[in-house]
């Protein structure tokens, strides 16, 4: 609760929370919000309609309402994103802590497994696995998890290694604490911010990747997803017909959702790691210095609203997998 409150105080936290909550509500109440049932088969009289009265975003090649598809599409994105994010976080953290804290051959085996996963090109392997395992959305989650845990495990492991060498762990050992006590009291507590933040950012990355997979036609064939809408647009030659309303809305939906998750992730990072110097503080400092130099500010009034300054933490690029 406290964390949410503190996130709300940051502009990006507010943006992130608002977008995420809105998308979740849309996904949950899709049947109530959607003007039409997008699963209706073939509405011959309503094919390829431009946006207008009745169909705010027009219709697709089968006459289905784009807006309704957009609303239902939130479900797949969210389910795949959240479930994969959760699974990757759990598996990756477990493996990372196991490797980092146990060391020895366990560490070697886990890290070499990560290496193997890293050298295999992501999307082609996903396509391959989707081919073998099927494209039901739970299989997609499994595939993303199998390919995604390694990054998380590596990150957590290096954090565990650095925590393990800190004096407070030695202090804990010196009072006779067991391995399990140290893992629960010190290691887990220390890696949890990294774990949560990267879990959220990972979910965002997975949404992009899922859209990519669906766009290639390897998504769940029975579900409506934003990626699949773009696939249909592409295979239906939307660009040739200038049917921008097939292309723009799903893309924007992906963008807004992912953007919201990332904002929430960065806000979380700032709330959970309050002692990391904020990058955007530079611009605030520059402003204050200029003001002072121009004689418009005094030292007494030069306090900068540090945390509230807008900007981004670009350092987390690695956490996002691009399609």
């Amino acid at each position: 609760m406290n964390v949410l409150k503190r996130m709300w105080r940051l502009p990006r936290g507010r943006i992130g929370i608002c977008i995420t909550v809105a998308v979740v509500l849309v996904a949950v109440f899709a049947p109530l919000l959607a003007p039409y049932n997008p699963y209706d088969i073939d509405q011959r009289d309503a094919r390829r309609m431009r946006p207008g009265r009745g169909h705010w975003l027009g219709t697709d090649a089968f006459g289905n309402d784009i807006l309704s598809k957009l609303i239902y599409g939130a479900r797949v994105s969210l389910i795949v994103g959240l479930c994969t994010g959760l699974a990757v976080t759990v598996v990756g953290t477990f493996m990372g802590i196991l490797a980092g804290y146990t060391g020895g051959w366990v560490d070697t085996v886990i890290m070499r497994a990560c290496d193997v996963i890293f050298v295999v090109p992501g999307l082609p392997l996903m396509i391959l696995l989707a081919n073998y395992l099927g494209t039901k959305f739970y299989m997609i989650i499994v595939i993303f998890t199998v390919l995604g845990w390694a990054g998380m495990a590596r990150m957590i492991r290096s954090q565990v290694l650095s925590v393990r060498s800190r004096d407070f762990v030695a202090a804990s050992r010196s009072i006779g604490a067991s391995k399990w006590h140290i893992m629960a009291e010190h290691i887990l507590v220390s890696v949890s911010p990294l774990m949560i933040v990267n879990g959220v950012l990972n979910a965002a990355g997975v949404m992009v990747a899922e859209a990519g997979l669906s766009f290639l036609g390897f998504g769940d064939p029975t579900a409506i997803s934003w990626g699949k809408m773009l696939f249909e647009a592409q295979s239906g030659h939307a660009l040739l017909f200038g049917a921008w309303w097939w292309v723009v809305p799903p893309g924007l939906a992906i963008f807004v959702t992912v953007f919201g998750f990332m904002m929430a992730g960065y806000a979380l990072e700032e709330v959970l790691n309050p002692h990391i110097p904020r990058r955007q503080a530079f611009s605030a400092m520059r402003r204050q210095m200029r003001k002072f130099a121009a004689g418009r500010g005094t030292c007494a009034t030069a306090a900068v609203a540090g945390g509230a300054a807008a900007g981004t933490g670009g350092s987390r690029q690695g956490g996002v997998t691009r399609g």
Partner: protein
Amino acid sequence: MTVSSMGQPLLDVRDLKVHFPITSGLFRKVVGAVRAVDGVSFALEPGKTFGLAGESGCGKTTLARAILRLEEPTDGKVFFDGAEITSMSDAQLTAVRTGMQMVFQDPYSSLNPRLNVERIVSEPLRVHRVGTERERHERVAELLTTVGLPPDAAARHPHEFSGGQRQRIGIARALALRPKLIVADEPVSSLDVSIRAQILNLMRNLQDELGIAYVFIAHDLALVRNMSHKVGIMYLGHIVETASSDELFLHPAHPYTLALLAAVPGAETGGRARERARRFAPLEGDVPSPACPPSGCPFHPRCARATEECREAGVFPPRHELAPGHLVWCHHPLETE
């Protein structure tokens, strides 16, 4: 070796060795060892302080950690309160560890930044399941008062405190289980000069009130002399000279002790021993690596008095007892008047 005449010592370290393997080549074959601690013996009575001084890399910290079995000793024995802890199982060790605690050098790294002070200080109590939640809470408040912090500090996090206050928190944690021995590894060297005296005085008051014995490790000779009853000077994993504090600093006998004393800056007000020390040539060069220590006397390459005898491979210098309790390992110790 150093058996005290006053009954059983609280801590008795006998010929302790800690070697770390050096690996090399394709298959990380063990090709040698870093002899971090290479045969150290000393004893410490209850309520007293044993000071360990030496340059970085001489093995002081490894020795401290090996006493608490944070490092596994390669060889030798450590007796605490009569019980040999070097051969204990983990379970037995847990019980013994209530009696011995450690205070660390860096008060920033030794307190988990994510826990509040209550949890940090109560950790020993929780690990050993002492008291109820409520009793633990009261004990934490009491401990904080003991180390000179307000009881409301319990709810705050380490980053809200200055270095000196953090070190007080570290001491409060060490005191939680009412230990008989605290191993303090450079407890003030990362603190500001004006804060150091606060912490040192606190440690001394605790010794007077609670009868705690300290192993006090520092690179600053003045600190060691001030805080300790007995002092050992370490060089490359060995104690090369040990004596009661004043005896050692008034009548240093090992050339290395003398060299250390001579190097202490600000020599104008030096006493008799320092006068003598300054006549000595200043020490050349750096401490050799403990991975390949010089054979014979480890100090011979830097020693002005070194002879053929000192360089002889495989022969560690003999022990001389110059006065009761004043031991020096040297072929040519300086005469003490």
